[in-house]
């Protein structure tokens, strides 16, 4: 439903977005990841028709954003970064304005507004001026206006930024509940969020698309993917580490001393190999005093750092 091809945006000499292509289908929740200033927001602004691309095309539900912006904007719901809303207005009046612009009248309009208020739990604040609301409520007002017309395409720039854990959870639940019949793009700094709500993730840095795949694929990139964590009570940590290193397919052992004479060993596998069986068998056979044993899925923040800070050559190798 969203087709972006060879998108490029220049501001003067600065290339903010450099040749990005991507597709989002119905039922997909795509997460935009990337450091600050990587071009995430700029890409979103072009998809929603706020900025005109320097080159490349964007189609939303078949409408070319450059050629027929109004048709494209009709099917898009957009939460801009920071959820801007008219500060002197009250949420009810604000949503009423959005509903009128979106072409709803009479009881249909009323139902849409009520549904949006209901979904975002705004009921208690609809008569308070928006600039007096807390950050969480302001964000929800922004989300309410974005979903009011039940859009096929939803673009949300950092929907959970600045929210407390409960509010984050609510917003994620909301996104998950809508995911089935929509195409959703969200941007985020929070890597767990990718796991919580997205079924695909892309990483952008310095305007370029560096990764496009599922969150699981992203974790597979991690050195810690399928690593085994063991907490042992051992008198001779160094010797135990050497012993663990000898297990088949273990490429590296990291050691971290904990209080009370415990030591955490992290066993990194050779790439693509699984070592949990060998490691647990070894531990049982050698009578290690295991306090804890666990398998790591991968460390997203580590992958994120590796991908976004890689130099040009390394980057070629990654993509």
């Amino acid at each position, binding site marked *: 439903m969203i087709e972006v091809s060879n998108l490029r945006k220049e501001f003067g000499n600065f290339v903010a977005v450099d040749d990005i292509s991507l597709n989002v289908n119905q039922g997909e929740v795509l997460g935009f990841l990337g450091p600050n200033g990587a071009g995430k927001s700029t890409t979103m602004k072009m998809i*929603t028709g706020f*900025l005109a691309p320097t080159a490349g095309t964007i189609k939303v539900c078949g409408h070319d954003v450059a050629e027929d912006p109004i048709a494209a*904007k009709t099917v898009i719901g957009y939460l801009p*970064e920071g959820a*801007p809303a008219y500060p002197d207005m009250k949420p009810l009046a604000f949503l009423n304005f959005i509903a*009128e*612009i979106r072409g709803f009248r009479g009881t249909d309009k009323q139902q849409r507004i009520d549904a949006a208020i209901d979904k975002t739990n705004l009921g208690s604040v609809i008569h308070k001026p928006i600039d007096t609301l807390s950050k969480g409520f302001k964000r929800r007002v922004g989300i309410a206006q974005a979903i009011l017309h039940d859009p096929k395409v939803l673009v949300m720039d950092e929907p959970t930024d600045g929210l407390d854990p409960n509010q984050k959870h609510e917003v994620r639940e909301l996104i998950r509940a809508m995911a089935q019949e929509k195409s959703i793009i969200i941007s985020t700094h929070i890597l767990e969020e990718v796991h919580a709500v997205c079924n695909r993730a892309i990483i952008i840095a310095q305007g370029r698309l560096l990764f496009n795949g599922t969150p699981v694929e992203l974790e597979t990139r991690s050195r810690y993917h399928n690593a085994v964590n063991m907490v042992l009570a051992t008198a001779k940590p160094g010797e135990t580490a050497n012993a663990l290193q000898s297990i088949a397919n273990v490429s590296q052992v990291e050691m971290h001393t904990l209080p009370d004479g415990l030591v955490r060993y992290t066993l990194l596998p050779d790439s693509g190999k699984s070592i949990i069986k060998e490691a647990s068998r070894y531990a049982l056979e050698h009578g290690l005093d295991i306090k804890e044993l666990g398998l790591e899925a991968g460390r997203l923040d580590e992958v994120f750092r590796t991908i976004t800070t890689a130099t040009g050559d390394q980057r070629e190798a990654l993509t």
Partner: protein
Amino acid sequence: MNNQINIHNIWAIAKRELINYFATPVAYVFLVIYLALSGVFTFYLGGFYERGQADLQSFFNFHPWLYLLLIPALSMRLWSEERKTGTIELLMTLPISIVDAVVGKFLAAWCFTGVALVLTFPIWISVNYLGDPDNLVIFASYIGSFLMAGSYLAVGSCISAVTKNQVIAFIVGVVLCLAFVLTGFPIVLDFFKGWLPHFIVDAISYLSFLTHFNATMKGIMDFRDIFFFISFIACWMFANAVLVDMKKAD
């Protein structure tokens, strides 16, 4: 830039703006100051009683100066506030054209000045009570004043699209409007007459609000004066739309 015009959208935007005027003290402060100042100008500076004539010359004479101060104060926030608070991103990603937004905002502000103008009706009642004025002349003057207010607003709205800073929008708006007032003054025109060809001096004089407003104050509803104000407003609104499109993301 997209030029489709949709009446529903214009109406929705104008309504939101108007409601916003009255949601904040802006509307009330403006109306009170406007009415108080027009009273002061008419009765003290204009010598309404001393003139001993049953007309509203002393009232309308000061409108160009009253608007010079008040209208840029009304128009300065039209676009700069949208850019400052980031709501322009919201507005411009709604399914509307830029022209809808420019026209809607302009009409809201213009309606508001219309309300202010209508609220000066006690002065019209007074003059009718005291004497027997030519009400057609008064009516023509009111229309002329309203059109002139629209011209000030069109300039101010356009300027407010250029900057995020409302103070700058106000000052530049005042200066530009002042230019369009002054070019109608004989002193200013005499200054140009010395060294500019005649037709340029005529053109400068033609572009002044004062030239056309004074004509309507004489009770002559000339099509050419109305045409001037309407086309003046249209030109500035077009520039406004172009500037919004250019500057929206800065």
